[in-house]
């Protein structure tokens, strides 16, 4: 097994997910199977290849079009949706969202 039970618990902790025992078992075997498949990426020689984190139009189309505009001016605009947003918050005390105690003992 590539993925241990401890791996699953560690990842669930990182992702803030409460899992049942049955889910831990299921995800252990499924992640193991999926990552086993993903290992085929190891066959590709990527030593001289840059990572692509966003669509780069020039590279993929053989053109050099600059598809993205200049950054816009940083202008303050009024936000008119604060009321409806707070109105459906699980627990709001205007103008705040209220949450349980942050410091755990």
């Amino acid at each position, binding site marked *: 097994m590539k993925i241990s039970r401890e791996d699953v618990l560690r*990842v669930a902790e990182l992702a803030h997910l409460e899992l049942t025992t049955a889910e831990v078992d299921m995800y252990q075997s499924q992640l193991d199977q999926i990552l086993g498949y993903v290992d085929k990426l190891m066959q590709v020689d990527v030593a001289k290849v840059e990572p692509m984190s966003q669509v780069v139009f020039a590279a993929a189309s053989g053109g050099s079009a600059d598809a993205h505009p200049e950054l816009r001016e940083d202008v303050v605009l009024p936000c008119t949706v604060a009321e409806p947003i707070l109105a459906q918050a699980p627990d709001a005390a205007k103008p705040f969202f209220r949450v349980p105690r942050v410091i755990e003992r």
Partner: protein
Amino acid sequence: MSATSHFPGRWTIPAVRDALRTRKASAREIYSHFIARIEKRNPELNAYLTLSPERGLAQANRIDAAIARGDELPPLAGVPVAIKDVISTTGIRTTCGSKILEHYIPPFDATAVERLERAGATFLGKTNCDEFAMGGSNENSAYGPVKNPVALDHVPGGSSGGSAAVVAADLAVVSLGTDTGGSIRQPGSFCGVPALMPTYGRVSRYGLVAFASSLDKIGPFATTVSDAAAVLSVIAGHDRNDSTSASMSVSDYLAALGQPVEGLRIGVPEDYFGTGLDDEVRAKVEAAISVLEKLGCKRIPLHMPHTEFAIAAYYIIATAEASSNLARFDGVRYGLRVPEETLGKMYRTTRGQGFGPEVKRRIMLGTYALSSGYYDAYYLRAQRVRSLIAQDFADAFQKVDVIVTPTAPTPAFRLGEKAADPLQMYLADIYTVTGSLAGVPGISVPCGDTAAGLPVGLQIFGRHFDEARVLQVARSYERASGNAD
């Protein structure tokens, strides 16, 4: 009413326009006709999650008032549309197919939605989908699967299964879906309707609930390629609220449709016709390519060597981005909150109970791929392989004008058939995720049915921002194959 032979007697955008102009029907009557059809058919299909008659009738009334005044009508005047439930709509519940947003009502419209409204469309409601657009069968919706209107015991495809089904079942004239790894094209293929994924950045994602930000796109379903082109013309273009939306000018997509395709070079990559491709799908797609050749297109064989690595790269990149994007659902600001004593416990319990199995699986996979010690081996490597896949497309487009492939390796499968095996479900995305990773536009256009009567889709990829060419080839095929008037 103008009709297509594939969907006889169907309302299309030109049919709505004719009816309004000649006063054969009012926008209100057309809208009410669709609501009545939905109320009759939807309990069986489960394709709509929420109807929006209040907003839709107000929109229809505004169109009827404009007609009475003799105003010029906007391009989608009185056209009833459906919107996938991952796209924000002011005042209309937007669940993303998830329990965690069961009662969420957005305070703003997505830009695509706002543009549809400005173009005169009337909103029927929100369509069912895989939870947070994660899935290829619509079986991952917290509100139950959509049934394929062509064969009720089959899936409609996913994740935009509801948006495909409502157009196929005549419960909307056109609809919006979203495509991250095939979620527009594959359900279009399974339900037998044209389905367009625009170029990355062509349509603003402002107001689209994010799944994988380097891959997500919004695009239309329609019964004709020209109706898909008409919707794209309305929703495309730069938006100051989405810095990833492109500033490239928007073509007149409808005008491009009539151009002859003679002399175009169509690339046929051998890598999309290997093992795993259903024989009937292969035969239908080959026949479609022959139709294009008869129209004067030149068939060019291609090899796109990194195709076989696309699924692996896609499922690392998409899940990594998803694990980050979905961190916002923590019970603090919107949606479900499961009360707990401490903040940390509230996060974990809310997310554990609010998300369904596939969403949790992808968050786990993405978190693992980004975690310390695995980032280079998985995430960074997947991004490097993505570059190679994009390069395959760039190289191909040096030699050809469009690339044609099957949309999916099989026709629609049965409900439940793949639900227990996530990897098998992922592998079915083999022909769609490539174009997603490269960011190119692609359409699925119906190219006949199997002996069992299940639709097959032909996929056509084009260069970045060359939707006009993709639509032109799709339209020429549609017309030549007798699928449209």
